């Protein structure tokens, strides 16, 4: 993934000009799909994912007078999106705690009449998606960045805002958790 060299967006320190808006639109068009995909993996809902990605772009625009902050535009945007999604997930958890949303209980992993049978690829994909949604927010974010979207450990650490060691520790926990959940369906 060569996102580092794709965009160099050092927005100059001046009032809004037409060029700035055009440049901003280019950045939005360039990053929107990857950011929405990240948010979708985190939240499991397209509408919410779009809202969080749009909010991240708004914040990016508001930070335009601090070029140092926005130089690494994708890392910055991805970090904002992930933090917004983590906040969103925590709010959901709080809501669930208060109102016991029974309708949100995921039944995807319950129906295992014949766990030994070879499940269809799409079915396993759904099971994996469902298992990923059950990870802790930070572990989930790191697993999505590294194992699903394929960023390097260093890039993941830069986006998530932590050390590479911390990324590896969280990755290990996430993978171990997922392997345990999906063990009956994974190839031996």
């Amino acid at each position, binding site marked *: 993934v060569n996102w580092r060299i794709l965009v160099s967006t050092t927005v100059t320190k001046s009032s809004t000009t037409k060029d700035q*808006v055009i440049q901003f*639109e280019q950045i*939005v*068009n360039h990053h*929107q*799909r*990857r950011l*929405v*995909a990240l948010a*979708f*993996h985190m939240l499991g809902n*397209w509408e919410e994912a*779009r809202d969080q990605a*749009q909010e991240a*772009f*708004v914040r990016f*625009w*508001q930070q335009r007078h601090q070029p140092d902050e926005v130089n690494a535009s994708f890392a910055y945007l991805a970090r904002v999106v992930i933090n917004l999604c983590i906040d969103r997930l925590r709010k959901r958890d709080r809501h669930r705690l*208060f*109102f016991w949303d029974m309708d949100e209980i995921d039944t995807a992993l319950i129906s295992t009449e014949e766990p030994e049978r070879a499940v269809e*690829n799409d079915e*396993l*994909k759904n099971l*994996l*998606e469902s298992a*990923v949604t059950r990870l802790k927010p930070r572990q989930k974010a790191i*697993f999505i960045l*590294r*194992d*699903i*979207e*394929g960023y390097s*450990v260093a890039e993941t650490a830069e986006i998530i805002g932590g050390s590479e060691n911390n990324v*590896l520790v969280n*990755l*290990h926990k996430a*993978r*171990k958790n*997922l*392997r345990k959940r*999906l*063990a009956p369906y*994974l*190839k*031996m």
Partner: protein
Amino acid sequence: MKCAKAQKRIAFLVNGEIDAQHRHEVEEHLRRCGACQALAAQYKDLAQRARTLASPNALPGFYDTFFQKIWSQISREVQPQAKVFQRSPLWTALRPRYAVIGAAVILTGIVAIFLFSKIAAQRRQAPLEAYLTQRNFQGLVQALADPRQRPFFMQDSVSVDLLIESCEFLELIHKRHGQVSQPLAEALQIILWEGQRRDDRGRAFTAGGLPINLLAGQLDFKAAVRNIRRLKQFGAKITLLEVGQAWTGAYRITSMKGTQTP
């Protein structure tokens, strides 16, 4: 390398996140261990499946108004609209989830205030009577030994009946266990003081008294009760005037006066 150590590194090996030396060690272990080979295969499968989830596709038209929405939000913030309606803080406070938290906080506060006031009242108003009523003799010994709490015992009143009751209770313990512990013996010294005292009209009286020989462990409870009963002729209540140190090292009441009750 043992399985436990290898299993921590298998996923890193599969995903190429391991240095050369460790990779060699784990690979060496995998050649010999079937269980770890199966684990490695599962991690490999998991890694491959995870990559298939990359870049999911939204429905067609999903991004059509993506930038417009961002720009309209930015424009709204640049040119603030008329003041928007905001819910009052009271309404927010009364929302169910906050109401539950609020009720819990208020309830906890009430219980805490009630408990604190009870403890404070016990310590400040009639400490001796409270300790005796609760049969907390050890607490009484500790309270009298504490210089911060000692002043609260001054001018404290206690009924003769309660003193007799306490004495009888201690006698019961003594009968049951054959002996009394050192703190209990000190408590006895405090409750069953002895010696000549004077009442508020200057008359001399024996204010309680316990023929006690701590070293021999002999206690004459009946004599003690008899002595305390004598206090009744001076009044049903006894007011404490002074607390001093006894020869055992414990603090006890050394001066008091009888109070006539109407």
